[in-house]
């Protein structure tokens, strides 16, 4: 990476690069003829909570997907823990997502046919943790997020707020170093949204997990340590 690129990355995200867990520099990503990202950058320090804000269609979700190794950007680079994600095989990126990252989506996106407890233990089992141990840890996290009582219910049988808490438990159960949350409160009312955000940020801070929080709601972004604005595929630092 050239010095000028480094410098741009630094100024764009407003933070020095050193000690960053994730550095995204100058990402571009096109879907067909539309450019979702057009020179976006994002730095994330360990344990830091960053809000990615911007209007709908600005490319904030794409930025999250690139940072999380779900998508590979067309140009630019994503470095996680001194390792270039763009150079990784799909297998390695999947492994990274299993072990180092956690995910919370809008509407929970729980697997509908699995019970809530099974949903939470799913990432553990994907990483090869035994059934009993995974169930025990899932239970712990359900308790921590105050939804222990819905463990045996199916996602279709619980409220949106409960479902989102289960989703947060599912994201944190592997004790990931980064949690990616895409509009985690998008489908919730203020009170439930507040509670989910409180629990998410508190749990993340407890486990020293960094959080990338994609949201268009200022009150949700206010839970972050700082914010990055995406507009027309470009990031604007604050």
């Amino acid at each position, binding site marked *: 990476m050239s010095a000028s690129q480094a410098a741009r990355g630094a100024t764009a995200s407003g933070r020095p690069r050193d000690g960053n867990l994730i550095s995204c520099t100058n990402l571009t990503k096109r879907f067909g003829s539309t450019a979702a990202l057009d020179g976006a950058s994002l730095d994330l320090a360990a344990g830091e909570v960053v809000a990615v804000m911007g209007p709908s269609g600005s490319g904030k979700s794409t930025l999250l997907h690139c940072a999380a190794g779900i998508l590979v950007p067309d140009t630019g680079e994503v470095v996680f823990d001194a390792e270039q994600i763009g150079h990784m095989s799909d297998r390695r990126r*999947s492994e990274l*997502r299993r072990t180092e990252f956690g995910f919370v989506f809008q509407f929970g996106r729980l*697997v509908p*046919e*699995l019970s809530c407890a099974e949903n939470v233990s799913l990432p553990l*089992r994907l990483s090869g943790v035994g*059934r009993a141990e995974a169930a025990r840890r899932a239970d712990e996290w359900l308790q921590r997020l105050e939804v222990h009582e819905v463990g045996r219910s199916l996602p279709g049988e619980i409220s949106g707020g409960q479902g989102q808490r289960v989703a947060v438990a599912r994201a944190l159960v592997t004790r990931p170093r980064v949690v990616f949350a895409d509009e985690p409160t998008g489908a919730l009312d203020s009170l439930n949204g507040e509670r989910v955000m409180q629990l998410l940020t508190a749990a993340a801070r407890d486990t020293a997990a960094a959080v990338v929080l994609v949201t268009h709601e200022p009150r949700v972004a206010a839970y972050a340590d700082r914010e990055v604005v995406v507009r027309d595929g470009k990031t604007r630092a604050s």
Partner: protein
Amino acid sequence: MRRAWTELRLGVRLAFRGGADARWRVALTAVGVTLGVALLLVGASVPNIVSAHNARVAAANVDAGDAHAPLLGLWDLTSYRGKTVTGMALQAVDRDPPLPPGLNRIPGPGQMFVSLALRDLLRSPAGAELDRWLHARIVGTIGQSGLTGPDDLRLYRGASDLRAHSPMAIKSFGSPESDEFSGPLVTMLVILMSVGLLLPIAVFVATASRFGSDQRNVRLAAIRLIGADRIGTARIAAGEALSGTVLGVACGCLLFLALRPLISQLDIAGISVFSSDVRPAAWLAVLIVLLVPAASVALALLATRHAAIEPLGVSRRGAEPRRRLAWRLVTPILGFLLLLPLIGASHRLGSTIGQVQASAGVVLVLVGVSALLPWFVEAAVRRTEAGPLPWLLAVRRLRADHGTSGRVVSAIALTVAGAIALQTVFNAADAQSSTRVPVNSTPTALYPSGMLVRASDPASVVTRQLRSTRGVEDVVAIATNDLNPQVPVSVASCRNLELIANISGCAGRSAYIVSAESGLRGGQAVRVGGHRFRVPESAHRVASRQLTGKLAFAGSIPTGALLLTPSAAAHLGITADLVDAGVTLNPRVPGARDNAITTIARLDPLADIPNDPTTIGNHVLQQLQNVLFAGATAVLLVIGGSLLVAVAEQLRERRRVLAVLAAFGTRPSTIAWSVLWQNALPVALGLTLAVVMGVGLGDVLMHIIGLQASFDWGAIALLTAAAALVVATVTGVTLPIVWRQMRPEALRVE
């Protein structure tokens, strides 16, 4: 009324204009229904095909008259390279003889009328040998009215010496009915084939008309939101369902019309069909054309009733009740109850009531398979808890989708159960017919009989000519005086006489009386065919014996009461010019058999040459069995296609879940395994059920027609494996869809 019409039309518009997705689903439904309707129409044509075939066979049959009938005829069936050539030798003995169907005159000696198919064969290099056997001149072709089908190899040839072969006296052609398709066994086969193969198609059509019903419900909910009432929604749903099925029915009819000429090219069990005979029974065709759309509407209404479509979305009506075993057992039990009284009463299959009873029984038992399967799957899935992650995902998915997979798979199970039952009946029929086939021919021997050879020593002529034929090893030939004599006389060389009786010191004019045959005595005066003579005083009493070694055969060469050497026969003035022979062939000489037949045909074109051993006996059944397997395979493929569509549809609906799983870093293999389990588990359960029910049904059916049930486990394994292969293939084909759905783009769309 007017409103109802508007709503129906709105449904149709939604189906066609609801975007690419909606059109895709309409197309899928239409394709499924098209295939199903075409197959159903072919099935509905079977009664007409059979009756037309029977009528054609009957038309060519002979109404035997008395001795004064104006026409003599002799059936002249030849097997040539695995094909049956149906021939008849004709000799007019009076004026105005009756004409066989499709002929305008009786051919003279050395002339023949042939079917177009036979003419083409004779003119091709492949038919050169047959041409030598027949050695008659083609003077015309047989009209379509005289043929059973376009591939019918048929000939009528003229003869001059027919009386010596004890021919039929023909009063007229055409008999009121043919018995080719009759008997309890055949009735059972027809019932099973129609039910066993058409029922899965019906199930398939039902499944096809439900493609994408979840999406449809979501759409209907949106329409409820803008103010449609429950009945209006139902009408819109009906309109949507109708657009795919009506299109499918129309295309199915067109496909059927396109298939008709192709059907006439098929040669099924040696029977070919004129495409003009492929006509669905009118009432069945009307039933199909009306019932398929009606059924799709009924199913659509049932689906909208089942899932409460409310303005704010689709909700299943309450917690789905656990499937009860009791009523699901009713159908198969009722089916068996219908079948059991028929045991030992196979004659009742001859009556319509008996046939309806048997068909209903078979239908109920097979429907029982599809009724039991969802319960079976659910019961199995409910009990499994532990297991690796793919297994857990598959089991939970199955538990959640309440029988959708069971429905598709039940069509497969139904096919396999029906095919196993059919296979069992075939197997028994096979065993039964095999025991009936006379052992008069083996690959290395040939037993021609009734060769009319006008010569002083016909047996020697035959022996000499056959001996000098390439590939013939040994010949026994014995001449007899008449096919139906008062005193049977056999004339042969001493060597040959010694083979059939315990004779020693035969020479010159030796004569023997076979003691077992009659009370002839030396010196007795007898009359043979108008010729009087005295049995020589020197005639010894001897015992007949069995031929041994390669020439061993029973009953084929008649043993006369009087055995004579040729010179003894000449001395007594006895003519014996019908020769029976046993010919052994050198298997290492190619074409030995054909050469021998050519020689025999030259000696007497009307000689009775037994069938080629590779084609004897169960040939027709073997071919029917092939048809069964081909039919079952076709049905399995069509259902495999529908399973594919169902899985693809399900995956489309699950793309967000798959995308989420991908985001979590789930290995693609984990998903692949879960899809495989999800498909394989119901199929494994379905096949188990199918084997049990199929074997049980086959057993009962065998008892009904009074045959020992014997199961061809190899064939059952083959059928099961074919079904399993279909599932494996479907899974394999859907995997690319899984990979595509696992792309995180699906996360983007809300």
